[in-house]
């Protein structure tokens, strides 16, 4: 075979052959790399789309939950509250002079319970409605909720918030407030804490809310595990709101003090 090409320029053949083969291989590699990149870009786009859809679903769920809270709060305040207030008005018109001592005692007890019920309805309605948050801002709402919720001599609450923080975005504030409500309720329900410290700080474009408490803490692994369980609805809500706010949460558990650190990027309302 080789003998047949002795007359031709073998040198030329070898060089051309090598170049053609190299070209072939380089083309293959370029096509492969371009194709893989295209596939990778497509996958990233799909992932972004799925993420976007998921966020839209979470946003819709959170919005509908917020709407429902408002509706219940308004009904409690305007209807149940109004009925209870009217009942108290009627009640106060009863002349207690005509009552004997046994009935008088019952009358006083009922009046006390009625006042309590009115107070409770108002408190629940305010919690649900977040009026305070809208009017006085996140710091005041957090302070008020902590005071109201931890009404016990057994638990010491310290609140130290960053006063430079002003309302940036009402949706963000509602989100942080709801997360805080859920976290504090969880601590009171499960941690058996007698000391809670709430601090907030704004550093550059990030808002940090830290809750330090003693008692039974939760580690990040436990939190991740619990939030996928059916009964962990509160933790799921927390996570949904965090996803929506593009933030993060870090649970730390120790023998002395446990902590929860919420980190939310500050976004000004457009």
């Amino acid at each position, binding site marked *: 075979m*080789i003998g047949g090409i*002795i007359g031709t320029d073998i040198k030329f053949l070898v060089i051309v052959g090598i170049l053609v083969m190299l070209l072939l*291989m380089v083309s293959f590699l370029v096509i492969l790399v371009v194709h893989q990149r295209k*596939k990778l870009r497509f996958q990233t786009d799909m992932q972004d789309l799925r993420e976007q859809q998921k966020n839209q679903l979470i946003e819709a769920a959170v919005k509908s939950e917020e709407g429902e809270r408002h509706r219940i709060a308004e009904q409690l305040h305007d209807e149940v509250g109004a009925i209870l207030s009217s009942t108290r008005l009627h009640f106060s018109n009863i002349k207690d002079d005509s009552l004997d001592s046994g009935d008088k005692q019952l009358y006083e007890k009922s009046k006390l319970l009625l006042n309590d019920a009115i107070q409770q309805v108002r408190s629940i309605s305010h919690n649900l409605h977040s009026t305070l948050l809208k009017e006085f801002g996140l710091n005041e709402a957090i302070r008020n909720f902590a005071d109201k919720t931890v009404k016990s001599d057994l638990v010491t609450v310290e609140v130290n918030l960053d006063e430079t923080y002003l309302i940036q975005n009402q949706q963000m504030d509602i989100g942080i407030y709801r997360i805080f409500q859920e976290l504090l309720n969880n601590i009171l329900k499960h941690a058996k804490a007698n000391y809670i410290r709430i601090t907030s700080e704004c550093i550059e474009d990030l808002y940090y809310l830290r809750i330090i408490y003693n008692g039974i803490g939760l580690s990040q692994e436990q939190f991740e595990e619990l939030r996928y369980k059916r009964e962990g609805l509160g933790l799921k809500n927390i996570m949904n709101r965090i996803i929506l706010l593009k933030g993060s949460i870090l649970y730390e558990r120790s023998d002395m003090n446990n902590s929860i650190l919420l980190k939310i990027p500050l976004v000004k309302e457009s």
Partner: protein
Amino acid sequence: MNIVLSKILDWSEVWALLIPLISLLKHKNQPEYLKPVKIYVFGSFFIFLFADIIMEFKKLWHFPYWLRTNNYLYNTHAIVQLFLFIWFFNLLNQPFLKKAKRIIPILACVFIGVNFIFFENFFERMRLSSLMLAVAAGILLFYCLQYYLYLLMDEQIRVMRKEAGFWVVTGLSIYVVINFFIFLFYEALIINNWNFAVDVWNVHNLTFIIYCIFLAIAFYDRRDNRH
């Protein structure tokens, strides 16, 4: 300077193999599909060491007559390389051109048998078996191309630089792509253009160094075990 450089290039088939060997010794835990490549690196190191010792010292050490050639070692290397890499490609388990991949090793065996029984002498003293080396390079080139074609058609998204298989195949591709024509015309070049044959063999040596570097990367790059 030229003599030093020439010596370095002449011995490149030995020292270049130390690069993947060191990488292999540093990263002993390799995936199963790299086993043939591991065997190849060790095997070819000894083959080329022996071949280069013959080349360098055949006159100095007065080797016996039958030991004064290393051509049969190049034939051995081509056959060992061919079958070990066919094994490697089979271990990659790519469901592509299965029939061809089953037939090719049989055809390769038939070709080697027929060629060395009827046409060429395996222990030829005067020249390399250009045909044997070129056919082996051609077959390996086919395997490399089908590997890339499979990657093109496969839906799975891969980060290629993290895949040991990709580095092995790319190193081998560079080696066979450049050397296919060198092997094919080497016999004729030796007869007709000796100087160019020497230069071209230096090109072969350079591609061999690149090939060894790619094998070393394949052994080193252990972040991803996929093919």
